[in-house]
């Protein structure tokens, strides 16, 4: 669909989401260096189009499972940057009250069933959510984000098999960023196109330019329609690139500067901004306004996080079980 067929509102929404994802990551990295954030960060810089495009194709009550590189998914699904930043800062007002951190941020009200610290760990959970939707005849969809590395995990194959068998309303969204931690995808899998793995599980496997937010949106929208109408799951492979290290501080000795430069030339945020100006007739001043708004949102998020109290040590004993309270653990 040509870009001119999208509403300006939709295009600006996508741009804002991508920019918020990008700037959230850059701010979190800066605040970690400044000492606000104690834990690791696995940034998704370079993968904004997959997060924003896929989540824009979902309804508010659809659900996602995410990954260790999950900040973008959460932002794109509507996650509040204040609660996210507060969680990264390990504060009481964070999404998990400081018990989860980057890898476990969750917001059930927004359909965010959790980032995940285990590669492939969220995929079977999304299948379970899809099972519940099918069981309750609820026209909702579960989308699981994961990386190329996860497609070599058993959980990926078990989950796709079950979803294909039961025709569950699940979208398996593989962000192929070409690296599983520090090892290139070509050294991890004997196939270049991971989408072909769908054929074993009787579902469509769709390859999409993961740096093209509109292409991601269209592919996900089609998969969501299929899932909602009883047509079962889809595997989407969005080909993209992780511009920064596996984690902040990764020396990245395993890849060349030339390769990184080539992908930065295809930066999804920069490319979409250019398309909006050149092909959708959107004024640069409008985009600059969004930029300012995003920065203000993040300034506020950092202020909120820094002002939030640190948890009382004894509260570590609460919340293990439904009825644990006041230090009662088993």
């Amino acid at each position: 669909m040509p870009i001119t067929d999208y509403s300006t509102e939709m295009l600006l929404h996508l741009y804002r989401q991508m920019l918020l994802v990008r700037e959230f990551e850059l701010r979190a990295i800066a605040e970690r260096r400044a000492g606000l954030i104690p834990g690791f960060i696995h940034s998704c810089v370079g993968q904004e189009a997959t997060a924003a495009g896929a989540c824009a194709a979902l309804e508010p009550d659809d659900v996602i499972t995410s990954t260790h590189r999950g900040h973008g998914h959460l932002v794109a699904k509507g996650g509040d940057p204040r609660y996210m930043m507060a969680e990264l800062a390990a504060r009481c007002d964070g999404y998990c009250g400081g018990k989860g951190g980057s890898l476990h941020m969750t917001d059930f009200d927004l359909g965010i069933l959790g980032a995940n610290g285990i590669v492939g760990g969220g995929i079977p959970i999304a299948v379970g959510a899809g099972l519940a939707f099918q069981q309750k005849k609820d026209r909702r969809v579960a989308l699981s984000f994961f990386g190329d590395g996860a497609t070599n995990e058993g959980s990926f194959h078990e989950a796709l098999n079950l979803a294909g068998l039961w025709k569950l309303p699940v979208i398996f969204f593989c962000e192929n960023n070409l690296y599983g931690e520090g090892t290139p995808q070509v050294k991890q899998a004997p196939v270049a196109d991971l989408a072909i793995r769908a054929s074993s599980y009787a579902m469509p496997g769709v390859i999409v330019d993961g740096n093209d937010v509109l292409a991601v949106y269209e592919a996900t929208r089609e998969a969501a329609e299929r899932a909602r109408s009883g047509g079962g799951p889809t595997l989407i492979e969005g080909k993209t690139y992780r511009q920064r290290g596996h984690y902040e501080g990764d020396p990245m000795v395993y890849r060349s500067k030339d390769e990184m430069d080539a992908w930065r030339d295809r930066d999804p945020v920069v490319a979409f901004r250019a398309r909006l100006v050149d092909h959708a007739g959107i004024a640069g001043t409008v985009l600059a306004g969004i930029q300012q708004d995003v920065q203000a949102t993040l300034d506020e998020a950092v202020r909120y996080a820094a002002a939030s109290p640190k948890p009382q040590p004894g509260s570590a004993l609460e919340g293990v079980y439904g009825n644990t309270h006041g230090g009662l653990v088993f």
Partner: protein
Amino acid sequence: MRNITYSQAIYETLREEMARDPNVILIGEDVGAFGGVWGVSGDLAQIFGEDRVRDTPISEAAIIGAGLGSAMMGLRPIVEIMFGDFLPVAGDQLVNQLAKARYMSGGKAKVPVTVRISTGAPGSAAAQHSQSPEGWYMNVPGLKIAVPATAADAKGLLRTAIRGEDPVLFFEHKMLYATKGDVPEDPDFAVPFGKAAIHRPGKDVTLIAIGGMVPRALEAAGVLAAEGIDAEVLDPRTLVPLDRDAILASVRKTSRAVIVHEAHKRLGPGAEIAAMIAEEAIGYLDGPIARVAARNVPLPYSPELENYVLPGAGDIVQAVRSVVQGRL
């Protein structure tokens, strides 16, 4: 009261809870048309339909994950892992996902998942179908662990698990399925977690027996009674939470403790219980704490070898004699 088998007690509870709450579903390998390899789920698929009693592929990780995700979305799934030995196949979903979902989400995730698991040695099933893995998961905060030993406890603990708020590993001992016991008729009969049962009161020694070893401990207590040793047989019924108060009260009364389980001795549930007694009640003890458990080798196939490795009533009698040493 009705006298029914342990297996029937579990089946009835499944049927009653599925009839009571449409959000309760049963999924697992061969639970539907087959009726469960141990025959427990029987005709539930005919009664409730194949969408609520679902046969799954042999995919333990997907089974646990499906339970977890569907529980997050409001179902109360009962998932079956055919043999306890297969739990490690689902390791990540069980240990990193199911157990921790509530805690690491800051309480946002509520995951009422009952995982039914057959445990213990059924005889010549060898090393991969005979284990008692309860203790492995005691080291994973977030899971509750039930080890019913009687038909009534199977019924009452399963009802508590299904109606509860947390993931429960519900260990059904294979050699108990055919045993019979009196079960209350109250349709809401439930046994709370963390409350031990005293199956036989006594004053000279406390036998803390788990799961399939409860009948063996009662058998041993009969032999000991003939020798003038009055053994109390205490069944914790759940390992997490553990009824520390009941165990300590009994040990303070008898001054001797022998812990009996079919799991391997090294770091089995008895290690935790013995440590707890030593921490809390060592001054009350008139002798060493003893553990009667499987020897620390994989379970062998040959009946002669298997009998040598597994604990029996004779081993319990011997252990009690050694702890008492004629001094009552």
